[in-house]
């Protein structure tokens, strides 16, 4: 369906070129730093599992012990596998337990042969973890072949969030039976700022359920059962975001989650996580998602909940272009890019629906091969549930008209209560009515040449290019050695979503380390070599 907006291919190419110029220094930054969470993800892939009696995962205890002895800058792999050999410990989790008890000292070996041996052992261990991820991916492909994909696009995406995994499971299964193609388990409020991943099955959470490996496993198993019963593979989504993004990405790969929320800047802007921490964690987690065949969902919808959806429309486009650049760089293919955007224009504004169509179509045409994630209205849901249901109907219609890939089902009780059973049922009736009645209307919907929608889309693209140009130009006068380049400066200035986030502030900064010359990460090595 390319070409409905008659976008100037030179402007599109210029936008992509600018995004690459803005993004490249951030990639360089990510390639020269590591974080505690990246290192813990390496340890998880190498087989460290479980938690101490206080619930602190052994990966945290081990990474902290290595860090205390030799710092993070060498990577944990060589010190850990060197210690395993010198201490004669066979099991890496046992080593973590001994390290936590203080009976192991870590060092960076000096002899070349020792380094080589430690690297080889580390490579073998993380290679085992990555092969488990590969097997899970192959298993997904097999199950999709057996049970089938949803019969149409967009896929219907429903949220479950009770706080108790054993309550979530029957709700998720009921939602799948009622028509959901994708189930997202919302995380507990506050998990994004925990610097460890909780362990085990959890039954207490606030406005959501903790993301843990066991919760992932339980929910995936339950949805496999329901998929078989329905003859349609039901996908499972969670959140690779916050301070433990790389570890959660690894756990998602190990437990065959199918989609992950994974935005390049969300944590910085909305959780005040340090920008460098975020970009380093981002790159690693995207590499893992690429390997695991996971579709990422980016979070551009969030910009529109804090800024005005018309005035800030171009910041969504800029963010989508950056997310695309970072995703490709990390090895994700276009089919894995659930770039986000949302239906958040004030409905009292004249032509609000035409503006929505213009913005949605712009995203569709800029990223023709990406399964765009279309997010429902939240900001202008007032508590008037009748009006809200109408607004959701128009949201669904805009999604159908512009060929969106993943449709997050809007609830008329948004901003009132966490969705009731009946709210979900009414919302799904709304979606079904629109998709059954108008699901193929995109075939007939061609905006008039030179008309309102074409002009608006071009204007937004033009503003996106201007913003990218401003970001590049402003940096021309700045210190060229400043890490991260123009994008970090723009983030510090509050260019996105109004929030100002300087690179030397924010949560998790103390978990960032610059690579030493001998930095070694067997997982990154394998993830980059495979491409």
């Amino acid at each position, binding site marked *: 369906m390319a070409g409905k907006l008659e976008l100037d291919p030179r402007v599109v190419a210029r936008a992509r070129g600018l995004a690459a110029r803005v993004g490249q220094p951030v990639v360089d930054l990510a390639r020269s730093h590591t974080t505690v969470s990246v290192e813990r993800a390496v340890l998880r892939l190498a087989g460290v599992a479980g938690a101490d009696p206080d619930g602190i995962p052994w990966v945290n205890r081990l990474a902290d012990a290595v860090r205390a002895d030799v710092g993070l800058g060498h990577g944990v792999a060589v010190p850990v596998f060197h210690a395993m050999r010198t201490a004669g410990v066979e099991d890496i989790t046992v080593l973590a337990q001994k390290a936590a008890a203080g009976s192991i000292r870590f060092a960076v070996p000096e002899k070349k042969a020792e380094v080589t041996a430690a690297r080889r052992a580390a490579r073998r261990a993380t290679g085992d973890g990555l092969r488990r991820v590969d097997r899970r991916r192959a298993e997904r492909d097999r199950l999709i072949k057996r049970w089938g994909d949803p019969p149409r696009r967009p896929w219907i995406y429903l949220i479950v969030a009770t*706080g108790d995994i054993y309550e979530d499971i029957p709700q998720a299964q*009921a939602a799948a*039976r*009622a028509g959901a193609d994708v189930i997202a388990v919302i995380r*507990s*409020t*506050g998990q*994004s*700022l925990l610097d460890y991943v909780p362990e085990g099955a959890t039954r207490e959470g*606030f*406005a959501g359920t903790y993301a843990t490996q066991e919760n992932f496993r339980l929910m995936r198993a339950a949805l496999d059962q329901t998929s078989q019963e329905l003859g349609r593979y039901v996908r499972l989504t969670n959140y690779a975001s916050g301070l433990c993004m790389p570890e959660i990405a690894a756990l998602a790969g190990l437990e065959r989650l199918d989609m992950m929320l994974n935005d390049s800047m969300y944590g910085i802007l*909305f*959780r*005040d996580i340090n920008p460098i921490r975020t970009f380093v964690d981002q790159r690693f987690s995207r590499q893992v998602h690429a390997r695991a065949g996971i579709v990422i969902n980016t979070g551009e919808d969030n910009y529109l*909940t*804090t*800024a*005005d959806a018309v005035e800030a429309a171009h910041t969504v486009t800029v963010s989508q272009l950056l997310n695309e650049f970072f995703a490709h760089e990390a090895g994700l293919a276009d089919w894995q890019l659930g770039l986000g955007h949302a239906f958040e224009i004030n409905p009292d504004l004249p032509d609000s629906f035409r503006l929505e169509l213009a913005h949605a179509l712009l995203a569709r045409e800029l990223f023709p091969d990406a399964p765009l994630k279309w997010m429902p209205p939240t*900001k202008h849901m007032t*508590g008037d549930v009748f009006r809200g249901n109408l607004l959701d109907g128009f949201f669904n219609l805009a999604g159908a008209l512009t060929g969106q890939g993943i449709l997050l089902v809007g609830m008329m009780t948004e*901003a009132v209560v*966490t969705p*009731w*059973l*009946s709210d979900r*049922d*009414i919302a799904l009736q709304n979606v079904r009515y629109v998709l059954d009645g108008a699901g193929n209307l995109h075939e007939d919907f061609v905006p008039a040449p030179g008309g309102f929608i074409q002009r608006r889309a071009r204007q937004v693209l033009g503003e996106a290019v201007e913003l990218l140009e401003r970001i590049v130009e402003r940096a021309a006068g700045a210190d060229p050695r400043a890490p991260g380049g123009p994008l970090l400066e723009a983030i510090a200035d509050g260019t996105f979503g*109004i*929030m100002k986030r300087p690179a030397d502030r924010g949560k998790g900064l103390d978990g960032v380390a610059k690579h030493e010359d001998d930095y070694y990460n067997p997982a990154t090595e394998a993830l980059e070599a495979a491409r």
Partner: protein
Amino acid sequence: MSIVRPYGDTTGDGMVQLSFTLPIRHDKRAEGAALQLAAKMGMDPAMLVHARQMGDGFTFFVVYGKVNHLVDTAKVQVVERDFPLLSAKEINAVIKRRLRRRLNVVGACIGTDAHTVGIDAILNVKGIAGEKGLEYYRELSVTNMGAQVSVPDLVETARAQKADAVLVSQVVTQRDAHLQNIRAMSAAFREALPAGRRPLLIVGGPRFDELMAGELGVDRIFGRGTTPREVASYLVHALVAAKGGAA
């Protein structure tokens, strides 16, 4: 006229609509059960206009019916706005003239609540519903601490900024987290600062009962639909106008 009853399409008809779900399959008995509930709620006669089974064991109902209850608007208890609503210009002028310095406001979402939508709507220049937020007011100095702020951090920042007022927003209400957080916050301020130096404590959120201010130990609660101008007007009323300019 202080006695009223609901209005469908004729004065005094008492008509209301109600929807709910019962955890049973849809059949004749389920419809009877729905009508029994409506009757117990005072709907007489009640008409079942819609019933739809959801999944295996639930049915959604819509009932229309007449209630005989009367309400007396003279006996309704609410927190009426007991301060004048001023324009941004007037607010700045009053602070400048009476306080002779900027009025310091510190805002935050406390506890694990990550929803800054409320505090941002009131504080960010962007504001809400066409009204600019408090940052836009020249005579207000605003510190927005954002989300997931701990109570000790909030008290410390309020002290460091010499806050005249502290605004706390709470959206998440699961397990009454919003009430517990506010009680902890007001207790911490009582403990940390003597009465005369304590900032005005203002709470906002869609699910608060505006009558609970005293019980929660705060000065004022603002509910759904509050605008920045209302909050600014209240600040001026409580801190500047009422105290006759005491700084």
